[in-house]
């Protein structure tokens, strides 16, 4: 098989000598030890360690070490509870079902009353345990050092009594009252706000979303008479078309869509969905598509009009007259229209552009292909995004006449296009109150701040999709003098009781309608499970009543040709900037650019080549008369003449972590209101080099698995990439599954007998039934690169956050990284994501070089890393072919340079609370790496034994946990279920079956004979012969059709 050639960055593709020189070394620069011992450069040159000096230092060192060790061990206290709560067993975690403030049902793991980890709630019939990186990271916000510590008036601390009496007094003379919030998922909260506002002559609740979905609701009002965002069931689709819609990364609820999407993408089930993506920037979703076409934002309208007509012609519906002809390269739209029409009721079109006319067309297409009622459901709407751009614009216009303004979970001064209006008005508004739990741009301008609890301290409920309810319950006592926002509204609105009782009352009514038995039982059971589903029945499915022809008029002349355009997009980690103060998210590498910490200008490859722009060049970007300075990231796969800048950066009052990077500007001022809707695409953008550079902390070519500098000894550089990545097409796989990896030696189970090894005893022990043999399989086909595992691992294993400087020094500490490989043309490459973690090799190269035996093999196949033995030679990292070992260059807990972001830092004792008490916090000078979450393995084994009451069964076999009982953190958090983990010695285990039977199983870098315990499963793209032919014809994306790489050899 002709394997494609993979590259991870343009540097690798171009193979310039400077780049190759940096790749020779594990770290870009040598550690200047001699410098550290001298003061001047001259001294540094003359400094030499002679025998006498060496002996002196040795003697001094030994004495000093001895003396230091003789210091009396400090006394430690053991402070038990005075009254131990009945349900807390110190040392044993408790789990509570709850819901994140992003709306994801989760299970919160607490230890001695403090939450330390979130996992998706598997009991939710909607989410089925899915969670994303942002949802995972919201845990850290509760320990945010920048949280508001109590109520304040005009910036000065005050108490709740003062606030309450003054707010009530001010409200008494108010008639025009507005509550501004983001989308509120909680029915009870909405009830409280409505009741509060009902007490005024003119009270109104204005909802907005910084990244707006308003057009979807408006178009559904026009087309179906129901102003709502429908719910989507991508899992029912055979054909998926995404148009500028990053539903696996940022759009609406990526955790849920990842789960649904993965269900359709299992090649072993015999069928697989086809995923087309038409978009301007390369997104996570686009990189998972079977066929992806880059187009400029201004061409999306033309794409939709033509697609509508093509589908209409196929299904025999009237077409829109007067549509300018437009097609993508090789007439791809024809193929898409054909597939959509042929899969009526089994197809879906998703569009992320906030334009009513475009959404009308999307609704029209979805209606024609029978999506409504199958993959799209307007009768059971979703509530993630209820923002109303027009209501927000109205409010911005009438701010001067508003008596009282309340901001609940809203920060319009930063993230609304009407920021200027709010900023100006807040100085004069009679009463302005912010209920934010953390100081933000809006709260500092408000007269009063009445800080809300963090959601982990609150009671709440949520309805994500009609009929699907979840509950939020407090898992930690309020840390500060805060009060739940709903309680504040109830207090000010003169309502009686507490909000928690109110929720219970809301649910009491629900219960009498639906269930038998006692309410108490129902409530406790619902609270335990955290979810409750209600059957939603509709008498009549929605019918399309919209007027497509009129709607289409505004789109007919949108195509602006080649003029440069700008897309303001959301990053998978930072999203709209609400959680910009979360260091886990800041340091999470972007799945596509692999950059951390920074905002930057995404420049398409063609433009960069034509204008001589390189990575890290500094440019001036001008839009509508204002300019910003940004660093450049040259991004393959981006539509030509289209630029991208992320939202959510440059927050002036975002907190100390959000503002630690000075060069990342805020681009919200460039967000524009067009035709009443908030738009994130701008025309008229100018990019000019400043001549300077701005270095982006991108890790994309760090830790390279193949060593290009050594290509002479390993043959052609590209030849080794196929040892790492394996991919095939669905056709080829279903016809000849055996062929997929036939050139490889096969899985561990089938292969290891043929090898000569120094460590024979490893295999004898590990094949013994007495032991477990841990192994993992990662399905490259299911991995969408979302990064949930990265954050999850960081939370579970106390991985420090090192900051931009140290990331640039290649010293980032993540134990799992998601390598992103490109293949094919830089204009529109294919993408493969590969989670890379310690492979726990049986012939581990790291183990043979450790001089102090700090890393050795366990009987269970683990490559153990013993911190207290490690002396920090770093030989192991040097010898690791997978580059997964991480060295602690600093003591991150005390280093001053980590103050702003490392969660567990001496300056923020609260941050220590997020640490997993079962995992050591590593000290400076030791190596660390993935342990397969050994703390979970040990805990799981012990649980199984305690359950059985013995370690050994009566027949002498050892008691083992049930397959699937133990999950690693990355596995548990993976929304697509790409990771399978278990005991290879158990023939019934899922991982054993995969290793034994699945033809897609292979190991990375098999040729170096490391015998890894991690296997990968071949990526399968669902490209039929038609698609492959289309791609050969023209794959640049545009009609004009830049041909891809000349020989097409990268095609499947």
């Amino acid at each position, binding site marked *: 098989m002709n394997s494609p050639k993979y590259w991870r960055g343009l540097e690798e593709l171009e193979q310039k000598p400077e780049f190759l020189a940096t790749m020779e070394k594990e770290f870009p620069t040598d550690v200047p030890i001699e410098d550290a011992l001298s003061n001047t450069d001259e001294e540094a040159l003359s400094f030499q360690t002679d025998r006498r000096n060496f002996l002196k230092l040795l003697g001094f060192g030994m004495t000093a070490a*001895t003396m230091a*060790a*003789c210091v009396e*061990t400090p*006394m*430690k*206290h*053991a*402070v*038990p*509870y*005075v*009254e*131990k709560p009945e349900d807390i*067993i*110190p*040392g*044993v975690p408790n789990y509570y079902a709850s819901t994140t403030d992003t709306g994801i049902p989760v299970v919160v793991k607490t230890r001695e009353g403090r939450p330390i980890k979130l996992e998706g709630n598997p009991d939710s019939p909607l989410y089925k345990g899915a969670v994303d990186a942002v949802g995972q990271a919201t845990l850290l916000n509760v320990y945010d050092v920048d949280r508001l510590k109590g109520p304040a008036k005009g910036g000065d601390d005050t108490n709740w009594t003062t606030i309450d009496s003054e707010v009530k007094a001010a409200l008494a003379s108010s008639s025009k009252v507005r509550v501004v919030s983001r989308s509120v998922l909680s029915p009870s909260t909405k009830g409280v706000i409505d009741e509060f506002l009902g007490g005024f002559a003119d009270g109104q609740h204005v909802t907005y979303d910084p990244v707006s979905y308003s057009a979807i609701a408006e178009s559904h009002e026009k087309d179906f008479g129901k102003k709502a965002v429908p719910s989507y069931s991508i899992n029912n689709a055979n054909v998926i078309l995404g148009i500028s819609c990053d539903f696996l990364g940022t759009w609406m609820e990526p955790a849920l869509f990842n789960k649904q999407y993965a269900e359709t993408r299992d090649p072993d089930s015999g069928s697989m969905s086809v995923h087309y993506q038409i978009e301007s920037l390369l997104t996570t979703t686009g990189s998972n598509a079977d066929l992806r076409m880059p187009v400029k934002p201004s061409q999306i309208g033309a794409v939709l009009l033509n697609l509508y007509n093509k589908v209409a012609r196929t299904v025999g519906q009237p077409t829109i007259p007067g549509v300018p002809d437009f097609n993508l390269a090789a007439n791809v739209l024809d193929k898409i229209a054909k597939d959509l029409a042929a899969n009526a009721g089994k197809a879906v079109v998703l569009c992320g552009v906030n334009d009513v006319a475009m959404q009308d067309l999307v609704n029209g297409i979805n209606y024609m292909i029978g999506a409504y009622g199958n993959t799209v459901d307007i009768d059971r709407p979703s509530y993630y995004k209820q923002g109303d751009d027009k209501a927000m614009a109205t409010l911005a216009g009438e701010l001067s006449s508003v008596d009282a303004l309340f901001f609940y979970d809203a920060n319009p001064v930063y993230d609304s296009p009407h920021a200027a209006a709010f900023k100006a008005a807040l100085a004069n508004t009679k009463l302005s109150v912010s209920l934010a739990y953390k100081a933000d741009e809006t709260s500092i301008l408000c007269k009063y701040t009445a800080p809300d609890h963090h959601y982990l301290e609150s009671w709440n409920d949520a309805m994500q999709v009609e009929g699907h309810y979840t509950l939020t319950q407090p898992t930690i006592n309020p840390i500060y003098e805060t009060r739940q926002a709903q309680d504040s509204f109830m207090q000010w609105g003169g309502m009686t009781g507490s909000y928690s009782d109110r929720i219970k009352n809301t649910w009491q009514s629900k219960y009498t309608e639906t269930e038998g038995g006692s309410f108490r039982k129902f409530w406790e059971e619902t609270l335990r499970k955290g979810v409750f589903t209600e059957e939603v029945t509709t008498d009549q499915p929605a019918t399309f009543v919209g007027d497509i022809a009129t709607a289409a008029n505004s789109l007919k002349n949108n195509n602006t040709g080649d003029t440069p355009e700008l897309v303001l997009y959301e990053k998978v980690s930072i999203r709209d900037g609400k959680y910009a103060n979360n260091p886990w998210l800041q340091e999470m590498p972007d799945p596509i650019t692999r950059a951390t910490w920074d905002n930057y200008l995404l420049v398409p490859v063609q433009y960069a080549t034509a204008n001589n722009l390189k990575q890290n060049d500094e440019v001036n970007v001008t839009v509508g008369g204002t300019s910003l300075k940004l660093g450049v990231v040259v991004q393959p796969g981006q539509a030509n003449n289209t630029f991208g800048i992320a939202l959510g950066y440059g927050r002036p009052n975002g907190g100390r972590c959000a503002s630690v990077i000075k060069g990342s500007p805020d681009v919200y001022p460039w967000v524009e209101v067009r035709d009443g809707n908030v738009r994130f695409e701008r025309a008229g953008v100018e990019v000019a080099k400043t001549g300077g550079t701005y270095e982006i902390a991108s890790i994309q070519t760090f830790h390279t698995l193949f060593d290009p500098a050594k290509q002479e000894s390993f043959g052609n550089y590209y030849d080794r990439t196929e040892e790492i990545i394996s991919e095939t097409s669905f056709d080829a796989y279903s016809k000849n599954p055996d062929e997929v990896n036939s050139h490889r030696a096969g899985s561990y189970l089938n292969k290891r007998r043929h090898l000569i090894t120094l460590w024979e005893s490893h295999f004898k022990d590990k094949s013994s039934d*007495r*032991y477990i043999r841990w192994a993992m399989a990662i399905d490259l086909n299911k991995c969408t690169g979302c990064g949930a595992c990265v954050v999850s691992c960081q939370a579970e294993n106390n991985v420090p956050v090192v900051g931009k400087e140290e990331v640039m020094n290649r010293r980032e500490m993540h134990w799992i990284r998601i390598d992103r490989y490109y293949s094919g043309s830089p204009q529109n490459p294919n993408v493969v994501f590969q989670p890379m973690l310690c492979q726990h090799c049986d012939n581990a190269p790291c183990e043979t070089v450790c001089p102090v035996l700090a890393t*050795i093999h*366990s*009987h*269970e196949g*683990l490559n*153990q*890393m*013993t*911190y*207290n*033995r490690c002396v920090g030679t770093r030989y192991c990292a040097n010898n690791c072919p997978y580059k997964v070992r991480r060295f602690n260059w600093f003591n991150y807990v005390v280093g001053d340079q980590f103050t702003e972001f490392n969660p567990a830092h001496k300056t923020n004792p609260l941050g220590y609370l997020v640490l997993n008490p*079962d*995992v*050591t*916090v590593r000290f400076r000078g030791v190596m660390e790496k993935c*342990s397969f979450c*050994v*703390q979970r393995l*040990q805990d799981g084994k*012990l649980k199984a*034994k*305690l359950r*059985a*009451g*013995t*370690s*050994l*069964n*009566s027949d*002498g076999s*050892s008691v083992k946990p049930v397959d699937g009982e133990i999950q690693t953190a990355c596995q548990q958090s993976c929304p697509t279920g790409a990771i399978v983990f278990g005991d290879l010695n158990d023939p019934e285990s899922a991982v054993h079956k995969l290793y034994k039977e699945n033809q897609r199983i292979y190991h990375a870098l098999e040729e170096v004979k490391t015998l890894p315990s991690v296997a990968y499963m071949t990526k399968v793209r669902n490209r039929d012969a038609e698609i492959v032919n289309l791609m050969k014809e023209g794959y640049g994306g545009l009609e004009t059709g830049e041909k891809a790489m000349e020989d097409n050899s990268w095609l499947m």
Partner: protein
Amino acid sequence: MRHFVLRLSTFILTLCLSGLLGLSSLQAQDGDPANGESLYRTNCATCHKIARNLTGPALSKVYERYPAGEDRLWLYEWVRNSPGLIADGDERAVALFEQYNRVAMLPFPNLEDQDIEDILAYVKAEDEKEPEVAVTPAGGAADPLADPAFYYALFGLVAVLLIIALLLVIITATLVSAVRAKENKEPLAFADVSNRARGMLKNNFVMTTLVVVLLVGGALKYIEFARDISLNQGYMPEQPIAYSHKLHAGDYKIECEYCHSGVTKSKNAWIPSVNVCMNCHKTIQEGPTTGTEEIAKIYAAIGFDPEKGQYIEGYEQKPVKWERIHNLPDHAYFNHAQHVVLGGLECQECHGPIEEMEVVYQYSNLGMGWCVSCHREEKVKSLVKGKLQPNSLDLTVEDMGGLNCARCHY
């Protein structure tokens, strides 16, 4: 001799007689205080103390308050069925009920008249005893090494030995000189002695041996010393409350698990929370060694008023800051439940004779060598007919992977 036997037999006879007399005099009393004591402990002690009021009134002089006759009969009735009396509206009963916070006394229908008399006899006997004086707690087992006097003594001993050695040398030298003088040889000069010593120093064999001995000995000593650094075996800090394991676990034989209940569930055995102490100390307000002083510290922590026998409302509780004795380093994981439930270990196997410790100290060194030696030798136990027994295959913990680094270090 005959005289002595006579005297002895007389003595024994007298002893028997006086015993009999004593016995008869006891029988002559109304009740048997010994039986009374046991009845009192099982039935009354939860609510009544002799010297002062608890939930119920103090029992002191109760035999006088209800003298034999009608009153005593009423008392029998009250003890056997006080709720009944109250319900019937008996004046005396209702008054008592009102007086003691409307807490009715439990009925004891199975107590016979004689039983009640026995209890009264016990109360009387207690009344007639001298009031007890609280004894100051006996000092813990003193560590001789901790006493500076020990070192002074050692130093003195060495000094004395050195002086003796010097004297011996002088005496020998004098004697040798005297002998030489008698033999008409030259008297011993200082130079001879120093020459001989210098000769010794120049002897390669002697010097090499000396250096090797010193180096090897020093190194061994250093390793031995270094190994014990931060192991803290024998560490016996003073605790904020002079809690005595000897009293609770030793004398009263309270199960370890009653307080350290985490030991079968969690990695921590845990120090009991104060509310566990209060299970007993709500009523036991005075201890045999420290009286009320130490128990008062528990009350101060949780906010309990021993006079009223009630918790103080709105009290700001003060957690007890115990000194931690067993400090494993952060990178070492240890699980109590695993060792106690699955390994079937007794607490004493690691913690030593806890039930004899007035003040607890670290008994084992808790070093890794100590852990590993046990993991190498100990046979894994398996459950046979509901009982943990060493497994039939003679598997040690090591055979189960118990020496893997990641078993304890992660």
